[in-house]
């Protein structure tokens, strides 16, 4: 089917964003990007993507805001508790045999997934030998992750998820309520490095034992998914672990045979010994 005018302009807009700001959304799943950019277009009062392109190229304050439309930021502490139960029951015992552990939370958004793992690692007695890397392309999200402050009305869901994940303590041990928000204990991020890193264009930066990358790959097309999964395989140490979102898997990936399905129902993969 031939592209309509909107699609032609949308591609030009993504091209312009790439050339000017080096954010590469050209290989993202278009249906949801388009939907979100249509909202942005309306918000900026532009009748066409070309007018939005004009704005983003000439007004430097527009790109940071557009980034919140281009990247989906929805997350939750211990989102999908079964996954964290899987990490706790099957991966943690393995990691306990290691003298030092590096964990990469790729596409960490506002830090919900990072704090979930930091709490889990503390509860499992792994914290003191672990180093976390929390990365994302959205600088606002990284700042939120670093601040570790969440709205109070989200805590009931977080607390329930934590319990369902097999939590060994009370979630309230890890935060204090202040100024209408819950501030997570800063000792949880003592061993965390927050950094800007794109799965689309950046390379390996460390050898890690666990990568948690949930609900990021669904926003990429097949080819980009393959690139990211290759990057994960290259970053993991022998027998390192990769955890994906509930609806993501390696089945169709070019790199599938570099992994074994470690805990299939939890979407946890293990890098093969050799390679």
């Amino acid at each position, binding site marked *: 089917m031939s592209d309509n005018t909107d699609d032609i302009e949308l591609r030009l807009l993504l091209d312009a964003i790439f050339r000017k700001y080096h954010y590469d959304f050209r290989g993202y*799943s278009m*249906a949801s990007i388009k*939907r979100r950019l249509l909202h942005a277009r309306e918000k900026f009062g532009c009748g066409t993507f070309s007018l939005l392109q004009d704005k983003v190229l000439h007004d430097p304050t527009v790109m940071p805001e557009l980034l919140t439309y281009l990247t989906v930021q929805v997350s939750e502490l211990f989102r999908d508790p*079964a996954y964290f139960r899987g990490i706790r029951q099957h991966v943690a015992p393995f990691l306990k045999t290691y003298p030092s552990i590096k964990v990469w939370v790729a596409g960490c958004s506002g830090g919900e997934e990072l704090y979930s793992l930091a709490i889990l690692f503390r509860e499992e007695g792994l914290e003191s030998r672990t180093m976390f890397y929390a990365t994302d392309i959205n600088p606002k999200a990284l700042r939120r992750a670093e601040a570790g402050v969440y709205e109070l009305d989200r805590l009931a869901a977080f607390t329930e998820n934590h319990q369902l994940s097999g939590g060994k303590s009370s979630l309230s041990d890890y935060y204090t309520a202040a100024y209408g928000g819950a501030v997570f204990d800063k000792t949880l991020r003592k061993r965390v490095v927050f950094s800007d890193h794109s799965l689309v264009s950046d390379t390996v930066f460390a050898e890690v034992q666990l990568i948690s990358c949930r609900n990021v790959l669904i926003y990429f097309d097949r080819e980009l998914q393959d690139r990211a999964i290759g990057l994960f395989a290259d970053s993991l140490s022998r027998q390192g672990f990769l955890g994906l979102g509930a609806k*993501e898997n390696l089945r169709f990936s070019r790199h599938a045979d570099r992994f074994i399905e470690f805990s299939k129902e939890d979407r946890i993969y293990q890098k093969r010994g050799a390679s």
Partner: protein
Amino acid sequence: MSTRPIEAIVIGASAGALDALTQVLTPLPADYPLPLLAVVHLPADKKSILAELLDMKCRLSVKEGEDKEPLAAGVVYVAPPDYHMLVEKDGTLSLSSEEPVLYSRPSIDVLFESAADAFGPGLVGVILTGANEDGAHGLATIREAGGRCIVQRPHNAYASTMPLAALQTCNDARTMSLPEIAEFLKEAGGLP
């Protein structure tokens, strides 16, 4: 009216969905020549047996849609719980975990709008029973793109709010009973 052949069917349903979908889908043969995509609102519970249940009742095969899965004829793709399901222009599915729309994830509007964009006049949109307004905007988008719009006759529906809302935004949609919708879908697929 467009002469472009129909390429896909999208269906949205909420309260009373299982029974309504069963009545619409069971008359269709296993070799139905089009893909069907459905969004059903389910309790936020993360696991759903809806696809399995429908699969047992229907001759078509029914499954949860997977990310980047190519659409195939004769298959019903049901949006998985807690994810939006969208159609790409290359005929594959994408999932998204973005915010609920009208408190719903999956959202009927999100599927319908992306499908309207992907299939244009080659799409049939069907709104069945439900107690909210999801799908009304999506159905209007399908009509604007030249597709065909069907709404379950409100007074026949288990919950009429959704059909009524759809008729508000899409007042020239055709209203039908469930057996009539099944007949229409057969014809849309070129079956006798």
